[in-house]
């Protein structure tokens, strides 16, 4: 009997997994269920390029033609509401039921809500294409935008809003922007760039109160300062979407908990992408949850292989990028694994920080610079991290030593 594959969540991860099942030669039924009205699309442009034009354009990762040609059934605008594990059936919000042999949960994450009263129609979050369209309509000269949270999405939006000549204030409760996962030296480079572009950054400022009368948002900071804006965009992190899995009795541990093969406690149910936490082999099985695009792609493809019985374990090194103005930041690995840092300066003010563990192993590399100045070295660093290499700090720090030569060693 041919098996039926069902994927819940038609985002980057679910979309890639569906295509991967066909790439791998699977010929049975593949159904992709998503609650958004769109084809699977790329989210990273939503805070960046998509804001540049008059109206954001969606960047789909596939097309209706390709899905039809590959016999992938895409059910859109419908939510999966329950999993009956005993019967191997997923129940959908339109009342229908989908039988599965293997199920992939690729439900992603949603913006963390600001737990305060007073938020109204002019306080918004960015996750979906529809959110992006709504935000874009407010970005223009003369409009005041308050960004709550100095994380990646907030800062990318700040850059996009400045390019459209809006007035931008970023409010961050932590002592500096990008506290999570980004070394201070790199955060400082980004901070300076924003200030040079005319953004006001208020760091170390908690919010005491917000009022939103539908025309204007007033944000009162703990120190007494008041920020008045036409739009407040809240970007204070993301939460994995785990409700469906939790109700089905699957283990939740900062995300849907899966093993190195992306399998939950139920051998027929997998989870991948932003929604799952998994053991990261490169750091001795430390359990992490990543909110990163390449991870969603890689895990979607890996889940597809394992749904077909490959039994492969996740081995990739985390990788992330962010674009703000002409600057690109790239990070390979998790810098909090490091105990010491070696800096390598590149051309045009670009630089890379190599993070070394106590035993000298390279565990992460963070770089920033104009355009793609750091890309090659970050990619080579990623390979060194995967090899668990212990490159000499002097070699890492020296511009004249090619990283590629360290890889061969």
């Amino acid at each position, binding site marked *: 009997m041919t098996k039926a594959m069902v994927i819940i969540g038609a985002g980057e991860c679910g979309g*890639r997994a569906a295509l991967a099942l066909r790439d791998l030669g699977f010929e049975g039924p593949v159904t992709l269920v998503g609650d958004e009205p769109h084809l699977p699309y*790329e989210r990273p442009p939503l805070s960046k*390029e998509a804001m540049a034009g008059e109206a954001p354009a969606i960047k789909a*990762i596939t097309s209706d033609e390709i899905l039809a040609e590959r016999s992938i059934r895409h059910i859109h605008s419908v939510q999966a509401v329950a999993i009956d594990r005993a019967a191997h059936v997923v129940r959908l919000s339109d009342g229908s039921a989908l039988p599965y042999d293997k199920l992939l949960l690729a439900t992603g994450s949603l913006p963390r809500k600001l737990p305060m009263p007073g938020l109204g129609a002019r306080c918004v979050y960015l996750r979906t294409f529809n959110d992006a369209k709504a935000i874009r309509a407010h970005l223009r000269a003369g409009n005041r935008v308050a960004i709550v949270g100095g994380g990646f999405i907030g800062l990318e939006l700040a850059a996009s809003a400045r390019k459209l000549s809006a007035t931008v204030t970023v409010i961050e409760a932590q002592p500096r922007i990008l506290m999570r996962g980004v070394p201070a030296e790199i955060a400082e480079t980004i901070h300076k760039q924003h200030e040079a572009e005319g953004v006001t950054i208020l760091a170390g400022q908690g919010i005491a109160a917000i009022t939103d009368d539908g025309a204007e948002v007033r944000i009162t900071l703990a120190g007494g300062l008041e920020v008045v804006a036409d739009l407040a965009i809240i970007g204070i992190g993301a939460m994995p979407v785990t409700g469906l899995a939790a109700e089905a009795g699957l283990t939740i541990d900062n995300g849907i908990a899966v093993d190195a093969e992306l399998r939950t406690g139920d051998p027929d149910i997998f989870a991948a992408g932003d929604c799952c936490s998994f053991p990261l082999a490169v750091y001795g099985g430390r359990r992490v949850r990543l909110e990163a*695009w*390449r991870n969603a*792609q890689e895990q979607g*493809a890996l889940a597809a292989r394992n749904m077909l019985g490959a039994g492969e374990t996740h081995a990739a090194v985390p*990788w992330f*990028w962010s674009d703000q103005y002409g600057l*690109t930041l790239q990070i390979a690995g998790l810098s909090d694994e490091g105990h010491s840092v070696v800096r390598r300066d590149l051309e045009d003010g670009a630089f890379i920080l190599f993070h070394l563990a106590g035993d000298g192993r390279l565990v992460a590399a963070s770089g920033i610079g104009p*355009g*793609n*100045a750091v*890309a*090659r070295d970050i*990619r*080579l660093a990623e390979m060194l991290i995967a090899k668990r290499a212990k490159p000499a700090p002097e070699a890492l720090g020296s511009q004249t030593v090619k990283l*590629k030569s360290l890889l061969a060693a």
Partner: protein
Amino acid sequence: MTGLTGAEQSNFPEEQMSDWVEACEAADIDEEDVMRFDHGGRTFAIYRSPDDEYFATDGLCSHEKVHLADGLVMDDIIECPKHNGRFNYKTGAARGAPVCVNLRTYPVKVDAGKVLIQIG
């Protein structure tokens, strides 16, 4: 070194011959590396493989029009610097997410220490 011998070159029809443009010195590109070449409002990427052959493709990634010459060459693969999309630079074939559209490739030859590409 690859490249066509004198005898083979003479077989090229005249109009095709004129399509060959000099891109750089052969020694300008390291082995297993890539260089950008702009010509006539277009941009190309020229590769030198680990076994010392030269190749050329369109210069921009088919995902978001980023210069591939800032990327990393490993064996016969060029990795885009922006999101790590991969292409076989010998054939132009896209090698998986996020890239799905192949790159166009161009004939290359080395003549008297110069790399020439036929950009028809």
